């Protein structure tokens, strides 16, 4: 995650994705997909620039994630992140309470981005 503290800085404010976008997680085997859907079209290029594959992979490094691929769907106004080897063996092998990884959409939404104050709610 970005080390920069929250607050205004050169007209930009740092906010969690949760106030800008929504997400849903789905699983297949030991792989997770996370949609990321900005509420406003103006946010799409900002999220495209800041919510990179590397940052999303870093969110799941502690779980052994090995790779993150982002698919951009500009016509739909959405991104699809696919994170490999993140489910600690998958629903049948994991010791985690949430073997499907359904709760991880909100881990993604805890990531912060810097947006112009006018776009932050």
């Amino acid at each position, binding site marked *: 995650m970005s080390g920069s503290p929250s607050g205004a800085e050169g007209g930009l404010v740092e906010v969690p994705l949760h106030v800008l976008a929504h997400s849903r997680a789905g699983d297949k085997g*030991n792989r997770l*997909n996370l949609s990321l859907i900005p509420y406003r079209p103006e946010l799409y290029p900002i999220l495209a620039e800041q919510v990179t594959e590397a940052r999303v992979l870093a969110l799941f490094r*502690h779980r052994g994630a090995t790779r993150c691929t982002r698919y951009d769907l500009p016509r739909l106004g959405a991104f699809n992140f696919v994170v490999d080897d993140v489910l600690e063996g998958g629903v049948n092998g994991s010791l*985690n309470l949430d073997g499907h990884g359904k709760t991880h959409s909100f881990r993604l939404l805890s990531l912060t981005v810097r947006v112009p104050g006018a776009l932050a709610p």
Partner: protein
Amino acid sequence: MSGTFLVGNGAGFSGDRVDAPIPVVRTLVRRGLPAALFFETLGERTVALAQLERRRDPEAGYEPMLERLLEPILEACFRHRIPILGNFGAANPPAAARLVARLALRLGLPDLRIGLVAGDDVMGRIALDQLPVHEADGSLDMRTARLVAANAYIGARPLAEALARGADVVVAGRTSDPALAIAPLAHHFGWAWDDWEKLALGAACGHLLECGSQVTGGVFWDPGVKDIPDPADIGFPIAEVTAAGGLIVTKAEDTGGVLDLRTVKEQLLYELHDPARYVTPDVVLDITECTLEQAGRDRVAVRGLIGHPAPETLKVTASFEGSWLGEGEVSVAGPNALARARATADVLLQRLERRGLPVRARVDLIGVASVHDSDAGALWRSYRGPEPPEVRIRLAAEGADRDAVDQAAREVLALLCCGTAGTGGARWRVTPRILTRSYLVLRERVPTTVSVATAREMAA
């Protein structure tokens, strides 16, 4: 062949709300258009768990809520010629069909026609060790692994054939989820099985509806952020498909929930990897050019779907007997709860080591970090946030030896006397695990059969 056909969904998984189909059927009847209703109740592991049920009881092994789901709606569907399709046969479609026959006779519908689709169960028919592994989870020693179930995800064609032969209820085991929606559409509109554009429409329709309320506000609502009307009564979805290729997704009338661009986007991308290649047995769906438009309250039009030719292979998911999982939990609350919870976690891991139990274990501090954490507890060990009012400590232990796993879980119970001050609320259990492997197999190797009989004939 009427211009518009309605597809309703009555369940999105085994465990869904059993009263959900009632408003869907009421809406389909009120609309008066040709329609079908489908139930998707078979998750990746569900068929293996059902197979274990069948071993215990030869008449079990199908969707346990089947009678509850169908009883309130079967007569209305039969009278209004709304066929019902479902993969609720799970590991025992013939027994599910017999249950539907008994139910139909009890409701005074002896002429109800039941279609039975077989062929998905490939256990003993295909040598799995000759096939390349497609997806895998957990670790498995194939030399000693004991197979529980092996089923191919079959496509829409046998389901459509059952409809063509007059089935009012189509009972299947493992099918692809979208096939349950493609079949009635292909049957009604007479789609060719290589009309990829039309089949893509059907696949998108099925994909959007297959998880029931997930497209109408379920796992979407976020209080104060994404509110929905009446989450205790979320209406299940209905699709309107036209002969010209139009698709509008809407929902049961007089229900809660919401259907808008946000809910449709979330469900469209759910469990999707490459958006250009959503592979189903009937078509490969490509949503890269897809656009959505709000077409009225709780109505979204879906356009720009692309279809690519169906794959030559089908996915077969095999389930094996896995290890044992032991879980135990205790709570601490009030002053110094976090320190007591951390110390409890450390002691539990020390106890397992001290006793030399052959298990792989993990501890969670529920309320501090659990579902997002790693087996090593990276998040709760590094937690520096505010003191939580209470914490539930959970131990999970896995191993091949049931007794060792049970002993590990019982270490949590022992904390009722040996634990920190104010430890309480112990629970523990041991459950068997299932492991799955997916394989790709040439579709010619998975022949399917369809039989249709009336409830009266089936009961005789």
